[in-house]
């Protein structure tokens, strides 16, 4: 099905894929490619500078420290290449690429032709131009080392017995790892760092100083603000001289002053190179359709990546693309975060280390005696960055909040500590297997772990397999934590989380564009045009909602795309009966209406008559076939209590009678509900108006609310909630008339209709977009779209009709049938 080839792969012939670089990223890419059937499409050839298969560079410091064997670090031994039909030129350095002839030349004279070429050349240690690096023509003076490869590691280990004191130039991550290795091997170790604190790429100054103190406690000597000028010694290393005139005697020097992407080959063959090899979102080199680059050598949107996670993401995207599996796979950059150990000390860092401006909130905790430092940058209620040093137990929760941009709890301490009380702060890792994670479906931690072990390593797959998180969804964050804990390296992200609906592989923006461009007005036409004709049942209702919003009256309604509630305009109950809630505008009714409701309830022997939280009356336990008759006899419009739409506007008594009221909330509430009744939205909208800041109608915790304040003004709130999730709404704007309240509410609701994901409530939508952004778009008209939004909303409101009119004209004879009888019986077989 996915065989639709791009022009690049046209024709039946196998292609020759050459990968320059057999490091972690090159090999990972080939692995991913093979997993996607890449062997059927390509003859794969790899060049690796090093004479071995590929290995996990991250473990090099373990080898140096003696805690790991070389064997531990091999990811793919040489046999793996044979077994998978890969030609590996191990130990052959590529010296030239001829892009016109599509040939790669090795230093041995070997020539390999290619159809597709991938640069995964990685990076090299940067050795600053010091005096006395070499002696008598050798590349490096005896006792002087870089720390990058297995071979470097071997040589260092071999040299250790000849040394007593070692200096490491560079106090970054790798330098400290080298220091740890040498310390473990019994040397006196000095770290010499140019900057004013250690690991300045990852840590802020307080964290860097705390780390220094911790390391000094372990016996490492740390020298800051120290610029090395010369390596002393005639034939072998005897010490270092610094720019401040001081010296340090030592027998061994390890240079770990950062890395530089390996780009010489790319420059020679004319590719665009800035700091790294420039690539597009396709990971392609601009100007050459058959050359790609991934890994530390690649520069994407101006960014170079050195941590493993983003690089593996690149490998995966390129494999998706080249295997033809997802031919339009794109890499759009990574949010950088990492969790690691520095000399055995836990460290997790993500995002920014410092606040961007005075609006950013900074939360810090420091406990020098135990070497613990924690810092959060909170931006618009979400995590902009974090440093956790010495205690990274909160890292899973924070990484998740960071990756997803979810809103943080108001009590920030919950994020930094595992509080003694409080369910939300309990660490997932500490929970017993029997602990219930999903309270809707009764799924325990143990059941989740078992499912992960059975191979369900994406959130979606895990939820599908166990049903956890498929009820109210409130436990999804915890399910994710269990997944991360149990899956470790097997953790996968599911591309479908970005889809608007699971059955059509497009984001909302792309889907809307495709729908408009191709004029797709019905749900079935979307499946035909964009999903190979596969009618995914779970996608139908979401598509119907979107198409109705896009096309309005031009939407071609297909009733099978609706959830049962929307087919019969009533809310299905646990026993298959329904509830009838007529509209009572603003909760204001009359004796005559109440009498009709009472009469209908009595006549149809309605099992329960219930006053709802939305200030109306619910007739519960009604059979499907009774619905049309009851609607007719009620003579009131539908209250839309069953669908993803504007539901109701709750009101308090307001200024007409209440002795505290400062604004006429009842009149406003009725106006709001009359105008917006039945408006289709991505998820339900509950509104309220309050006549004074006492907020009796709870308007500040509604999706959209208005609160009267002194001076004849109204605050318009958006994004409030008081359900499974509780959130106080944000003030969008303060206005001074009912008309203005109606306008801003309508404008917000139209923007929400256009930009929210299906079923995304405003309490997720508003923090996701950000109230500042919403204000600038909807109040300051920063995008110049306010007039259009208002016009679209006018049109949507104008298209309103009461669905209960289907009582008079059902769309299908069986629309309200409970069960039908056969029309005949025969003995045919």
């Amino acid at each position, binding site marked *: 099905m996915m065989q639709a080839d791009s022009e690049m792969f046209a024709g039946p012939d196998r292609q020759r894929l050459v990968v320059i670089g057999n490091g972690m990223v090159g090999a990972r890419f080939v692995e991913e490619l093979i997993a996607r059937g890449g062997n059927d499409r390509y003859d794969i050839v790899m060049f690796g500078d090093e004479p071995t298969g590929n290995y996990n560079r991250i473990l090099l410091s373990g080898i140096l420290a003696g805690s790991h064997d070389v064997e531990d670090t091999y990811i793919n031994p040489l046999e793996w290449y044979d077994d998978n039909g890969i030609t590996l030129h191990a130990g052959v350095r590529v010296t030239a690429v001829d892009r016109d002839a599509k040939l790669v030349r090795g230093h041995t004279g070997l020539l390999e032709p290619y159809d597709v070429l991938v640069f995964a050349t990685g990076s090299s240690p940067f050795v600053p131009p010091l005096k006395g690096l070499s002696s008598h023509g050798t590349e490096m003076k005896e006792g002087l080392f870089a720390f990058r490869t297995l071979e470097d590691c071997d040589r260092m280990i071999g040299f250790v017995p000849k040394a007593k004191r070692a200096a490491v130039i560079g106090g970054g991550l790798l330098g400290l790892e080298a220091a740890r290795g040498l310390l473990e091997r019994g040397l006196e170790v000095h770290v010499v760092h140019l900057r004013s604190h250690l690991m300045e790429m990852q840590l802020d100054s307080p964290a860097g100083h705390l780390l220094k103190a911790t390391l000094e406690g372990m016996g490492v000597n740390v020298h800051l603000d120290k610029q090395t000028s010369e390596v002393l010694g005639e034939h072998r290393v005897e010490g270092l001289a610094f720019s401040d005139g001081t010296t340090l005697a030592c027998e061994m020097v390890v240079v770990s002053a950062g890395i530089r992407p390996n780009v010489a080959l790319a420059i020679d063959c004319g590719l665009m190179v800035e700091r790294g090899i420039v690539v597009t979102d396709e990971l392609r080199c601009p100007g050459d359709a058959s050359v790609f680059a991934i890994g530390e050598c690649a520069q994407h949107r101006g960014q170079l990546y050195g941590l493993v996670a983003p690089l593996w993401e690149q490998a995966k995207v390129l494999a998706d693309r080249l295997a033809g599996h997802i031919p339009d796979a794109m890499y759009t950059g990574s949010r950088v975060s990492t969790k690691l150990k520095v000399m055995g000390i836990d460290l997790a860092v993500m995002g920014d280390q410092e606040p961007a401006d005075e609006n950013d909130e900074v939360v810090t905790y420091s406990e020098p005696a135990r070497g613990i430092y924690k810092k959060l940058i909170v931006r618009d209620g979400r995590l902009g960055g974090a440093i956790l040093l010495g205690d990274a137990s909160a890292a899973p929760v924070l990484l998740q909040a960071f990756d997803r941009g979810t809103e943080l709890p108001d009590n920030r301490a919950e994020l930094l500590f595992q509080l003694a009380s409080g369910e939300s702060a309990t660490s997932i890792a500490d929970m017993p297997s029997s602990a219930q994670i999903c309270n809707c479906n009764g799924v325990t931690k143990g059941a989740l772990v078992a499912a992960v072990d059975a191979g369900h390593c994406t959130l979606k797959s895990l939820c599908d397999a166990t049903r956890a998180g*498929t009820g109210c969804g409130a436990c999804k964050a915890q399910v994710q934590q269990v997944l991360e804990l149990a899956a470790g390296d097997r953790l996968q992200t599911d591309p479908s989380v970005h889809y608007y609906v699971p059955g059509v592989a497009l984001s909302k923006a792309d889907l809307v564009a495709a729908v408009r461009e191709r004029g797709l007005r019905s749900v079935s036409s979307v499946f035909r045009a964009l999903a190979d004709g596969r009618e995914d049942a*779970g996608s139908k209702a979401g598509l119907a909602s979107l198409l109705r919003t896009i096309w309005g009256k031009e939407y071609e309604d297909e009733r099978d795309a*609706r959830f049962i509630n929307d087919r019969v305009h009533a809310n299905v109950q646990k026993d298959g009966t329904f509830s009838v809630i007529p509209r009572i505008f603003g909760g204001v009714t009359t004796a005559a209406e109440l009498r009709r409701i009472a009469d209908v309830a009595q006549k149809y022997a309605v099992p329960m008559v219930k006053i709802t939280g939305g200030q109306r009356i619910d007739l519960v336990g009604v059979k499907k076939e009774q619905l049309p008759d009851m609607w007719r006899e009620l003579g009131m419009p539908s209250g839309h209590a069953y669908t993803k739409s504007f539901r109701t506007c709750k009101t308090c008594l307001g200024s007409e009678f209440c002795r505290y009221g400062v604004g006429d909330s009842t009149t406003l509430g009725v106006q709001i509900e009359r105008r917006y009744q039945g408006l289709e939205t991505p998820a339900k909208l509950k509104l309220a108006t309050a006549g004074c800041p006492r907020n009796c109608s709870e308007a500040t915790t509604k999706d959209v609310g208005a609160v009267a304040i002194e001076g004849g003004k109204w605050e318009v709130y958006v994004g409030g909630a008081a359900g499974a999730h509780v959130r106080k709404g944000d003030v969008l704007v303060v206005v001074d008339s009912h008309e203005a309240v109606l306008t801003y509410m309508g404008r917000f609701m139209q923007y929400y209709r256009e930009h929210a994901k299906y079923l995304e409530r405003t309490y997720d939508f508003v923090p996701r977009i950000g109230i500042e952004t919403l204000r600038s778009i909807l109040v300051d008209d920063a995008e110049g779209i306010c007039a259009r939004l208002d016009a679209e909303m006018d049109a949507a409101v104008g298209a309103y009709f009461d669905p209960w009119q289907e009582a008079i004209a059902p769309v299908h004879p069986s629309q309200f049938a409970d069960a039908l009888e056969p029309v005949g019986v025969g003995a045919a077989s």
Partner: protein
Amino acid sequence: MTAASIPLDDTVAYDLGLVDRIPPGEGQTFLVAGREIAVFRARGTDAVHATQARCPHKAGLLADGIVGDGKVICPLHANKFDLATGTPLGNACHALTTYRAEVTGERRVLLWLAPAHRWSGEA
């Protein structure tokens, strides 16, 4: 798994009337010899499938579910089943009992109270 009070008789065909009694792409509950049966009609093709009427989980009426690609999603808790085999998909429910159902040349739906497919696995 459902213990049938009336023995299944695969020689008797019930005529459920024209396929148009079921809206395209939807299901409809039928009462056949005292037994509730859900019959589903595929959009576009008119192909039909018949299963037990209620979800094994909490007795939701499957005919009120959303249908697509030969699968139905229960309206109550979104459990999904394969219509041809009754196999639960991504949930731990029992399989649905399925029944033989066909559309004749005259577009009439015939139903036999006999299994359409013996599903032998366990969830």
